């Protein structure tokens, strides 16, 4: 993964890793990751799903909301590879468009929460003292509202003030906003903890004594050294946000049909599992595979960045 090259471990290489001459820490982490078969396969799967999502309009055989009223609820066939749903919509196309939504939700919320969380955590950890306690206390309070409730509240406020006309864009923006708001908190905690740790290192002191400004020390010396745990956490947060999206859509609080996301499809399909299993199986397998891939990649990244954590 390209992300791995950005980072290096915050700890010196473990004794078990052994000294390899001429290799940077980032390179070593990448090597370890590439040796992990399940992580590599997972990375490929994730890239594939992202690609499918990005190319949805090209790949999908039909539009996601086109109805074939003469072919309702048919099982998989040569014409409709995954069958059609109760309104005669092609399941494969809906699944592909669902991948688009799920991946977009996962990646965009990860980026937003990375930006907010890193900024907040870095400020809190770097300044410490009074500002740190106030900032962390507020984070604690935000954290004591269960995230699913917070998601619902944010969506409620967002929906109450009708800003965006397009219903799909509106549901999606509300969801992105809500998910970003709930997921930056743990990132901020990790970044703060790491900054507090790295702040004590002698190279930071050296940089400061040479007259580097606080901003420069944080951005040039601290940030590159704490990216490992941050990337690992992000990799675990993406599937969790994808899951939350499908949760909300499943509950009827997220995207609504005719728009398609994996949660919407699962909600459409689960009641008729016995009679029309194809409605449930395809979104189910898609969610399962994506979640598995992200989790295995996360495990692999964690092992790669911190070999002492291997197998935890």
């Amino acid at each position, binding site marked *: 993964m390209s992300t791995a090259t950005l980072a290096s471990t915050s700890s010196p290489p473990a004794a078990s890793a052994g000294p390899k001459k001429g290799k940077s820490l980032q390179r070593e982490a990448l090597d370890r990751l590439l040796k992990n078969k399940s992580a590599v396969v997972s990375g490929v799967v994730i890239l594939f799903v992202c690609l499918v999502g990005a190319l949805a309009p090209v790949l999908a055989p039909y539009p996601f909301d086109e109805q074939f009223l003469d072919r309702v609820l048919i099982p998989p066939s040569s014409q409709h590879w995954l069958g059609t749903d109760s309104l005669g919509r092609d399941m494969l196309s809906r699944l592909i468009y669902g991948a688009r939504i799920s991946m977009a939700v996962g990646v965009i919320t990860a980026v937003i929460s990375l930006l907010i969380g890193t900024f907040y955590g870095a400020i809190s950890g770097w300044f410490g003292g009074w500002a740190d306690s106030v900032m962390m206390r507020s984070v604690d309070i935000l954290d*004591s*509202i269960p*995230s699913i409730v917070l998601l*619902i509240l944010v969506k409620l406020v967002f929906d109450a003030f009708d800003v965006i006309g397009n219903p799909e864009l509106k549901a999606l923006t509300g969801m992105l906003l809500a998910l970003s708001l709930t997921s930056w908190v743990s990132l901020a905690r990790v970044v703060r903890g790491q900054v507090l740790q790295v702040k004590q290192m002698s190279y930071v002191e050296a940089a400061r004594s040479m007259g580097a400004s606080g901003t420069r020390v944080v951005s040039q010396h601290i940030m590159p050294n704490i990216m490992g745990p941050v990337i690992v956490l992000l990799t675990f947060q993406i599937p969790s946000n994808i899951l939350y999206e499908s949760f909300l859509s499943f509950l009827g609080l997220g995207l609504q049909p005719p728009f398609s996301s994996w949660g919407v499809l*699962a909600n459409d399909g689960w009641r008729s599992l*016995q009679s029309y299993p194809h409605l449930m199986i395809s979104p189910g397998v898609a969610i399962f595979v994506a979640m598995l891939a992200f989790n295995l990649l996360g495990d692999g990244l964690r092992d790669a960045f911190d070999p002492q954590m291997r*197998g*935890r």
Partner: protein
Amino acid sequence: MITRVWGLSVAILFATVVLLSFFAYEIPTALWWLFSIVAFGGTAVFVFQQGMTFYVIRRLFEAAFAVLVIATLTFILLRVLPGGPFDSDKALPPEVMANLAAKYNLDAPLFQQYLDYIGGLLRGDLGQSYKYISRDITSIISESLPNSIQLGVYALLVSYLIGIPMGVFAGWKPNSAVDVSCMTFAISGIALPSFLVAPIFILIFVKTLGWFEPALWEGPAYYVLPMLVLGIRPAAVIARLTRASVLEVIHSDYIRTAKAKGLAARTILFKHVLRNSLIPVLSLSGPLAAAILTGSFVIEQIFAIPGVAKHLVLSVSNRDYPLILGATLVFSLFLIVANLITDILTAIVDPRVKMS
């Protein structure tokens, strides 16, 4: 010694309460009292003895402050959100509007409204529902809360009872067949959302085997499936954490010493490994409670369980703001209490936890 007797009696009382509730017997009030006195009184004495009083009091104040902030937030939302009890299509006569405003306490000055709201909360009054006319939210929630708590506690127990043994067996013999199969279960349990597991379980256990009931919440046959489905994901998380923790402990010096002394494997496992490796698992209880709470939204929906989460989801589509915010408060309070209990228990069990 006295600690052990106390711990054992709390465990027995807790098991009795859970079993009685599971088999849908009425729990005698005296038992509740006994349980609360033994559990809380014992904890208080212990906390005092260990010199943790200041820590616990500080945590209590922090929790109360968090509740106050969240209550203020819900009040602001309640007033800011457009739409309300008299948001109907027909234009109402001004007299009716005034009466409605008086009923929902909207005619007082804003700060007075806030004070009334907080005062009401202190008396356990969450206000009036916009949708269910003449029903107050406290009664709606207190009807559904026991179901949700039952579901949550069962699921938590299921996840510990499945997760801990799996993690211990896996970690005790790493890379064995047991380890591989346990960890395969765990990673699948994490990757499978409950709304996929639930229909499959219903198909197998209700439609095919006919063992359990697929919906509602009226007795043991109704409890089993929801608590299993809700417990799987946390069980998987616990199994993974327990395994990691056991692995770490069995490589520590004191286990090597115990082995060198020639202690039996059983003794080492139960006396040395388990006790130390379960501390991280215990400290995970707060986040687990949050995960179970999240999961209960989908579970209550699928199994049509009349709990708070189902009310909350329903009231979102009804735009019943007071009920939504009341449920928010209840859930937040629940999470805060769960985290508080977890932290205090962890501090009691593990003397190494710093009281900073």
